[in-house]
Each structure stands twice: as structure tokens, then as C-alpha cells.
């Protein structure tokens, strides 16, 4: 274990805080890691073994208190879960649904219906979540009755974190050995054996902290990510995909999820597509007709509906970007007050309609240009005690 650690240290070239454990102790500790590693890194596991005093018959007060606290927490969680279940069944009854098949989504919908809230902040609205999501997860008992910690790295203060680093080191070494073997046998693969990081990204510091149930510092996180990146750069890193994916989350692009609607055709065979968009309080519905001559109609007027050149540019931008200006006709209907917001709504609606006219490459470019995203900015609320959303009343020194 120490040799593995030493090798890792040499390779990484930085100092890692090591636990001051002896070899013999470490050997026995390993067994405990294997047994309890899952329990320490997973959520609210209950300590099933009852607290028995050691052979000597004495247990320190702090130890006792600690174990009592752990037991109390577990008992508390059991009660909360039971209450939650009862509540869930009651809610299902209220809504006239089958209690057996009442899922969390149904609960959310029911609460939204029964207790509608106009509050802006989602976390301030009423909700009913499972206790495991509401209450902070705590680690199970980290040492036994005699005070001996289960985890080898307990005295580092961040056992799960350092365990992950050790596993990283081991993985690195095994990959190196594999690479050497391949080189010796002169085996070269045509396809790259490196891990493909596409579509995934590293978990954030908060997510890792939650996973390890340890409050990581920035320096821990930075070091961890640097080390993991070095692992990714290894030519055979795809062999360690399972290990890597524990610390990466999949980032799905919305594009791949949503289907682009196919073009519709009028009676004369002219292709067209409708799109709708919103911006602040303006709502626009736009129909784009193919095989056109560049006519733009907004609420039965031409583009002179907008007097500002900025608003006209907003309307024209999607067509100019996709190079369809002068080749398609645009018929827009917009409601809601505000000219600038109307222009933004028309722009979004036009872009969404144009998706059906262009190929995937252009669609990706449109997405990157921000044409397909709704502008979520709205007028900020005025706060009491202030003149406006941000402006304060005049400050008088005395």
C-alpha cells in the first residue's frame, strides 16, 4: 500500500497529506475499507450493529455521545420516511389517484395544484420531497466501539477523497503497465484507445463533496481534476472508463433530444413552417414560406412596423445568418406591448421556424449564435426599502 502510494506521489510530484498509519495496521484497515467503503461513501446507511461496549467494558463519554447521536439520526430518518409515505398516500387519495403508483412527479404536480405559488424563487415555493433529499446526509459511524476507525485514511480528515486518489494512482500504474506490454508486443491499435470526453463534463466541487460526504477545499478539487485529466490523456484511458465516469456527469445537448419538425406544404406545394417565440411580454407567431422573394410582413404591415433600425436588424438577423434573406417570405403576428420585445420574439420564432429549412451544420451554428435560445430576462422586481430593483433611496449621511 505504501509502495503504491509512494509511486503515485513520485508521479504526481506534489505532496499529498498521508495518514500516519503503520504497515500492519494498514493491512487490517484495508479489509475494513473494502467492507465499509461503500457504506461511507453512500447515503444515509443505517448502522445496524448495536453499540456494544468493548471487552474492557468501558467506553469514553464522547464515543457514547457520538454513537447515540448516530442512532438518534437514524431513528429520526426512519420516522421522517414513514411520515412522508403516509403523506404521499394521503395526497394520492386527495387527488383521486392510486396510492401505489403515485410517484414524485405526481406529488410535485399535486402540490402545485393544491398550493399554487406566485413566488419567483423555486426553492421558496411549497414542496414535498423525500426526506433523503431534504435532510443533509451524514456519514455512518466512522469508528467502532473501541474508537478504532474503519477507514484507513480516517486520520487524513478526507478518507473517501484520498481513497479515490489512491485508486486513481493504481489505475494510472495499471494503464502504464498495459501500455508497456502493448509496446513490447508491438501491438498498435488503429482506433484511439483514449477515453472520449465528449458529452460529459467533470462533476463540480459541490457534487464531489456530496458524493464523498466530505467538505472539499478548492485545492483538493483542483488537484483532483488535474490528476484525473492527466489520466484522461493516457492513450489507453478507455480501459478505465468505469472509474472515470464515476466522476463525470453526462451533459445532454437539448438539440439531440428535440426533433426538428418536418416542412409542411401548402395546397400549391409551397413549403412552409411555423414557429412561435416569446420575449418579456410579447408573443410572436411566424410562418416562413419557402420559394419566396424576401417579403417581410408584420401584423399586416411591412418591416416599417419597427421604426428603430435595431428592431429591424433583430427581425432580419436569422434570415441573414442562414443566408435565406430574399429567398423566403415571412409572415409574423405579434401581440404584447413593447417594440423591442416584439422584435426579439419575432427573431426567436423565425429562428425556430427556419430550423426546418436548414441542415444540421447550420442548425448547430444557429444554436451557437444564440438564435435558438429564449431570452429569459424579465423586469426585476422592486424591493421594499429600495427605490427600484437595484436603486436605493438617497443616502443621507446625517
Amino acid at each position, binding site marked *: 500500500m505504501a509502495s503504491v502510494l509512494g509511486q503515485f506521489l513520485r508521479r504526481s510530484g506534489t505532496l499529498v497529506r498521508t495518514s500516519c498509519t503503520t504497515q500492519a495496521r494498514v493491512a487490517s484497515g484495508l479489509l475494513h475499507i473494502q467492507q465499509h467503503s461503500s457504506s461511507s461513501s453512500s447515503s444515509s446507511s443505517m448502522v445496524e450493529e448495536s453499540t456494544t461496549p468493548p471487552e474492557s467494558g468501558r467506553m469514553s463519554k464522547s464515543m457514547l455521545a457520538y454513537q447515540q447521536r448516530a442512532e438518534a439520526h437514524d431513528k429520526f430518518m426512519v420516522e421522517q420516511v414513514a411520515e412522508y409515505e403516509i403523506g404521499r398516500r394521503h395526497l394520492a387519495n386527495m387527488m383521486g389517484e392510486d396510492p401505489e403508483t403515485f410517484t414524485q412527479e405526481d406529488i410535485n404536480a399535486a402540490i402545485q395544484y393544491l398550493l399554487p405559488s406566485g413566488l419567483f424563487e423555486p426553492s421558496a415555493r411549497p414542496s414535498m420531497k423525500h426526506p433523503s433529499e431534504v435532510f443533509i446526509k451524514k456519514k455512518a459511524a466512522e469508528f467502532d466501539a473501541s474508537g478504532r476507525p474503519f477507514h484507513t485514511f480516517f486520520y487524513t480528515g478526507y478518507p473517501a477523497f484520498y481513497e479515490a486518489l489512491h485508486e486513481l494512482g493504481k489505475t494510472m500504474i495499471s494503464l502504464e503497465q498495459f501500455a508497456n506490454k502493448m509496446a513490447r508486443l508491438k501491438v498498435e491499435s488503429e482506433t484511439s484507445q483514449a477515453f472520449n470526453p465528449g458529452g460529459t463534463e467533470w462533476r463540480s466541487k459541490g457534487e464531489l463533496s456530496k458524493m464523498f460526504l466530505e467538505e472539499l477545499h478548492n485545492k483538493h478539487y483542483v488537484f483532483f481534476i488535474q490528476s484525473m485529466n492527466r489520466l484522461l490523456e493516457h492513450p489507453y484511458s478507455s480501459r478505465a472508463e468505469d472509474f472515470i465516469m464515476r466522476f463525470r456527469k453526462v451533459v445532454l445537448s437539448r438539440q439531440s433530444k428535440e426533433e426538428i419538425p418536418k416542412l409542411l406544404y401548402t395546397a400549391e406545394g409551397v413549403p412552409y413552417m411555423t414557429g412561435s417565440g416569446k420575449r418579456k411580454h410579447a408573443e410572436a407567431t411566424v410562418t416562413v414560406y419557402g420559394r419566396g422573394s*424576401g417579403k417581410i410582413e408584420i401584423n399586416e404591415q411591412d418591416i416599417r412596423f419597427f421604426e428603430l433600425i435595431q428592431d429591424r*436588424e433583430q427581425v432580419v438577423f436569422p434570415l*441573414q445568418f442562414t443566408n435565406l434573406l430574399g429567398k423566403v417570405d415571412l409572415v409574423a403576428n405579434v401581440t404584447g406591448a413593447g417594440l423591442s420585445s416584439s422584435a426579439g420574439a419575432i427573431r426567436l420564432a423565425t429562428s425556430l421556424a427556419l430550423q426546418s429549412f436548414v441542415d444540421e451544420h447550420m442548425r448547430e451554428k444557429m444554436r451557437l449564435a444564440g438564435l435558438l435560445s429564449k431570452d429569459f430576462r424579465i423586469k426585476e422586481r422592486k424591493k421594499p426599502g429600495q427605490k427600484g430593483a437595484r436603486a436605493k433611496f438617497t443616502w443621507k449621511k446625517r
Partner: protein
Amino acid sequence: MMAPSARRAVLLLRGLVRRDGCVAALGQRCVSIEAAQAPPPRPEAPRTALTSPVQHTAEQHGLWYTLRPSVVQQLFQYGIPKQYMTQCRTFAETCLMVRQPALTLMDYIRRSDLSLPPNKFLLYGRNGCGKTLSLIHTTHFLADAGWLLIHLPWAPRWRRNFKEVTPSSTIEGQYNHPLDAVMWLQHFKTQNADLLKSLQLVTQERYTWSRREITEPDAPLGELVDVGISRARYSTDCVLALTSELKRHATEGRCKVAVVVDGINTFYSPVSRYRCEDKTMLDPKFFTLFQAFKQLFRSDWKNGVVVGSVDALANEGQRRESHLPRYLLRKQGWEALDPFVPIPVEDYNDLEMRSAIDYYLDRHWLQNPQAGSDIGRRELAALSAHNPYLLMHVCRPL
């Protein structure tokens, strides 16, 4: 912290890194593929060498003809709109595009039977389409074709931007414009100086201005004009006298008289800025100058032509919703001017738009390298809604 490969991927995705690895400057936004190609060579403005509109035919449609500086000074001290004049000074030349409404007008004037009561041709169209400049073109044609010009550059000046209005001492209940009439007489003199000398028209009545100032019959008309210019007090009556004399001369066949009025519908508007002694706003029909011109709109003379424009901006603010003649002229204007030939003035068609942009490029007014490209032209056309005035506005910051 992103791995170098991840960072490069991000940069590639954002289009900031070209294939050879150079990083483009920050702030360079995504542009369409066409716009990224090399700009086309600068085109020449499509011009015609014919400087006299008498020679213009349908072949010159869309071409730019240059007005000689002497012509501009003589005829158009007051005629050309201010913004267009500023542009001409910037370009160091006064050019006009030969467009269909002017060609139609000139053709009709050529074919008019002058032995019949005068034909009335009224241009109408939306704001910024080119009514005034078509009138300018036609006025130049009339001057070159030997017509005597009674030219009112912008009629609403007498109704709402007059310098001074005084009650008339000669005609009961009517009001004079001393200073405005002087300015107009000077303008008339400059325009028609040569023609008055060559035609040798004389007064046919005796005009008693005061006990000592009398204009005898058989005095040259130039003298009548000089009286009005030198004595502001009698200038309005002088204008009335002049118009009556010219009408009589035309009927008797000694000259052909063209009446050109920009904003003819202002004569039939009931709103003026002058407050009478009894605190009411004066109806413009009591202006002597208006009377002088209205007599020319009647069909009781010969060898004449009335050319005008019906402009929404010539009406008061509340009566500008439509650009159509019947709405703008009101009932009394329609009855006074009917029958007339309405000539629509429309936005640029594709040929004219191309010609206009070529002219701006020729004058080095459009500095953006993509302005002359296909996508650039389409963008200019879309943003300006093919309107000449709006095109001028859109091109200003380019």
C-alpha cells in the same frame, strides 16, 4: 480548470481558432459562410451623360444624371430637400436617379394639348418614395423645355412655418405673408430671369401700390416683380398680380406656364398657426398667397400645366394616416383639383435598388466591405424596406 484539449475544443467550437491554429481576436462574432469570402470589386455608378431631362427616355431608367451647378443655383435654390442637399455636397455633385414617375410625367407633359385647359398631374405615394425628387426632375425638364415656372418648393411653409402673417390692407378679411412673398418672388426671378427677358412680357393692368408707387400698364413683368421684392408691404399683392398676369398671358398664347407645387394638399387644410385678434386660429383659405395659387388650379386658362405632389407630411399631424389623394386632399381639394391624373410613386424595384447601392459604392459612401456583396445588398434592401429615404438612413453609418 479545463484541460488544454478541452479549451481548444471550446475555442474551435466558438469559431475563434482557424484550422492552422491561429486564434482570432475576441469579439469576432459568427458570420455566415458567404460573408466570409473576399469582397467583390467596387462597381461604377450607372450614369448617363445626358444632363438635360429633355433627352431622357425609358432607356435612362435607373441611371444617374448630373445636374450642372449652374442649374442647381438658378432653379433649385429652394427646391431640393435639405438632407438630400447635404448628401450632394458630401458627394461633390448633385445627381438624380431617372425613375419611372418622372419619365411618365415628362411624357404626359410632352403630349399635352396646350390649347385645352391645363392638365393636372399629381404625384402621390408613401413617405420617402421620391415624390419631391421626381418633381425636381420634372421642374428641370420644364425649364429646359422653355416653360415659365411658377414653382412652390414646399407649400406647407406658408401654412405652418411662415415668417410673418399680417392682415391685408387691400382685401378685406384676408391675410398677407410679407417676408415669405418676398422670398418667393426672388426665387421666381432667379428661376425665370432669362425667360422673362426673352419673352418680354408686360403688365396689362395698372397697379396702384400707394399714392407715389404705381406700376403702369405695358411695364415689363420684371418691374412688377422688383416692386414686390423691394417693398415687403406689397409683396403678397404683387404675387397675386403676377399670377393673374401670367395666367392671362398664357391664355393669350404668349408663353406656356407650368405651376409646380410640392405638397399641394396643404392648400385645403383648415389648420394654420396664425392666431387672429379674436383668439381663434385662422383658416388658411384666407391667405392671399393661397388664393393666388388656387386661381391657377382652375380650368379657365390655357397653355399651362399643373404638376404637384400630394404628401402626407403636408397635412396636419392628425390627417396623415393614408397616403392616398382623396384622403389627403379632403372634399374641397378633390373638388377643386378634379379631374387630375394621379401618378403613383413607389419604393425602389430591384433595378433601382441595385443602381442606388452602386451609386453609394461609387461615391465611397459604403465603407463596409460586404456592402456590395449579394448578401449585403439583400440586407440593405430588407432593412430599408426598399424605401429610398430609409436606404439613405441605413447607409449613413456604413
